[in-house]
């Protein structure tokens, strides 16, 4: 951030203004952008996008009445929740109950501090960036457990306990699958992690070795579980637990829990993009600082939002797992595989300290092959649906 403002001053954007005023104003503007654009637009807009994508996958239309194509639906929903009565149950632990949503919200907003939106657009480039994210998002568990306990309701308590068990378990494979990348780059800072990669897909860490390739999938799966997303949405399983730890909440506190949940979807995408997919890197096209910052921001946003879309798509595809399946996936599959992964990655770094270029091309080609196979399956299913539709028409004069 400071570098960005320095380069703006050097290019003569603020003639006759003291540098500390520029710094202060810059920080204020950036904080406002983060709060307004990301917390509101991303979390709110994601609810709308998710409902539309989900509806289309289920052959429905989804909300399309408020504004053009229903684009203002999320605003209306938000205003509705803001105007609702804030009910606190008589038997609830009053202060814990009121405090819990803020803890969840802090855990979620805290993650934005180290999200690198561009080479200069970052609030604080900490040297422990990626560890900071894993630890600050763990604050969400405290909030959820607090909400579950304070509601004094069986559904809430079971939901809260399930969520705590789930997040604590899945933090292990998530943290372990970060390590292959950390071993390759030799740093924990978000910006240095991105600088170790390049703009071209074959320069990304995900294709650097077979171990980071596997780690990518393990990380995405455990991040979904940590964010309480389907197929791991047991803490708020509607069919079993009413709404889990949010059962007793209403109005603006309810809104906060869901803002955190949907905003978290974007955070998952942002971490995946930073660690594995080259972050904000763009091809060298311009020298203008502002244009470059905008392009980098767009690149990063599109990449990370793509993974939020994939999470929505998974939600529309996969059924919810059972509690025992959830735990067996974590402890029997993800944790052992990520340990093997770390060992393999360490050996890989030892054998090829400067990387191994044929592997980049091999893995990139493999991914292209998987994507090609995937689309061939899509075409297959489309064609089969068309054949089924045609066969449904059979002639009968009685019809």
């Amino acid at each position, binding site marked *: 951030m400071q570098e960005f403002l320095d380069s703006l001053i050097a290019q003569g954007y603020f003639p006759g203004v003291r540098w500390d005023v520029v710094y202060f104003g810059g920080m204020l503007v950036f904080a406002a952008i983060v709060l307004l654009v990301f917390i509101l637009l991303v979390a709110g807009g994601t609810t709308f996008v998710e409902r539309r994508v989900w509806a289309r*996958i*289920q052959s*429905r*239309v989804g909300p399309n009445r408020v504004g053009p194509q229903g684009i203002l639906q999320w605003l209306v929903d938000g205003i509705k929740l803001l105007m609702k009565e804030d009910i606190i149950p008589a038997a609830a632990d009053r202060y814990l109950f009121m405090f819990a949503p803020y803890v969840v919200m802090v855990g979620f907003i805290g993650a934005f501090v180290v999200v690198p939106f561009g080479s200069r657009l970052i609030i604080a480039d900490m040297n422990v960036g990626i560890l900071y994210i894993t630890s600050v998002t763990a604050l969400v568990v405290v909030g959820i457990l607090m909400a579950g306990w304070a509601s004094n309701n069986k559904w809430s308590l079971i939901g809260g306990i399930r969520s705590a068990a789930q997040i604590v378990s899945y933090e292990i494979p998530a943290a372990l699958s970060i390590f292959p990348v950390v071993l390759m780059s030799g740093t924990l800072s978000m910006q240095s992690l991105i600088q170790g990669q390049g703009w071209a897909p074959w320069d990304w860490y995900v294709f650097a070795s077979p171990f980071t390739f596997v780690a990518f999938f393990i990380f995405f799966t455990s991040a979904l579980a940590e964010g309480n997303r389907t197929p791991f949405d047991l803490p708020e399983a509607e069919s079993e637990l009413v709404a889990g730890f949010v059962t007793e909440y209403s109005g603006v506190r309810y809104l906060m829990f869901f803002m955190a949940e949907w905003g978290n979807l974007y955070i998952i995408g942002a971490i995946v993009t930073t660690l594995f997919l080259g972050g904000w890197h763009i091809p060298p096209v311009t020298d203008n600082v502002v244009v470059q910052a905008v392009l980098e921001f767009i690149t990063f946003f599109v990449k990370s939002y793509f993974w939020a879309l994939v999470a929505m798509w998974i939600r*529309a595809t996969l059924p919810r797992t059972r509690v025992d399946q959830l735990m067996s996936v974590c402890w029997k599959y993800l944790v052992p595989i990520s340990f093997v992964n770390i060992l393999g990655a360490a050996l890989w770094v030892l054998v090829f300290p400067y990387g191994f270029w044929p592997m980049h091309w091999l893995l990139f080609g493999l991914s292209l092959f998987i994507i090609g196979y*995937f689309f061939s399956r*899509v075409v297959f299913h489309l064609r089969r*649906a068309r054949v089924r539709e045609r066969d449904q028409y059979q002639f*009968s*004069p009685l019809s």
Partner: protein
Amino acid sequence: MSYTRDRGYFGGIADLCMTILDGMAVTFSHLMRKPSTVQYPDRMGMRVQDTLPFRYRGILEVDLEICTGCLACERACPIDCIVIDVTKEKNVGMVMTRFDIDMAKCMYCGLCSEPCPTGAIHHTPEFEGADYSLESLIRRFVKDPVVAYKPKKTGEDDPKVRQPDITRARTHLAWEPRVDVDEGLRLTFEWFRNKIAA
């Protein structure tokens, strides 16, 4: 592929990846199909009422121009939702002072329209009866006393020859018959022949 047998640790992982990939291909293919939602009532090509079959039994309507005041419908109604008051006036004939149908009671059986000699009482394709009070569902057809219709002595019957026309279906629904007349006749003959043979 069968997923019932135990494929071991790595076989299970392979199955998981393949099945998830295929499941996601199915859901992705749905993104590229047309949604099957019908956005009733305001975002449709035409009103639902116009797409209903010819003999659809909707809300009842009386054409007082041709009503003879014979009370056949009132007698036929099994739940007495039709009330008709008719008086005989000198030099004028039958005069109707009341013709009420309580659509809240009506069960849309169609028994009233069967005995009607002129087809005055008939079903319309209208079905949207939602209202704020039950009283507003009572349809009162006679505002001022009306002289009942007197049928002519010559035959006024069902037409013996009908000529169905699909122009409306063509213009409103952009509908085209899937088989032409000759082909349809051939298929019908064939179908009946097979039916008799079977």
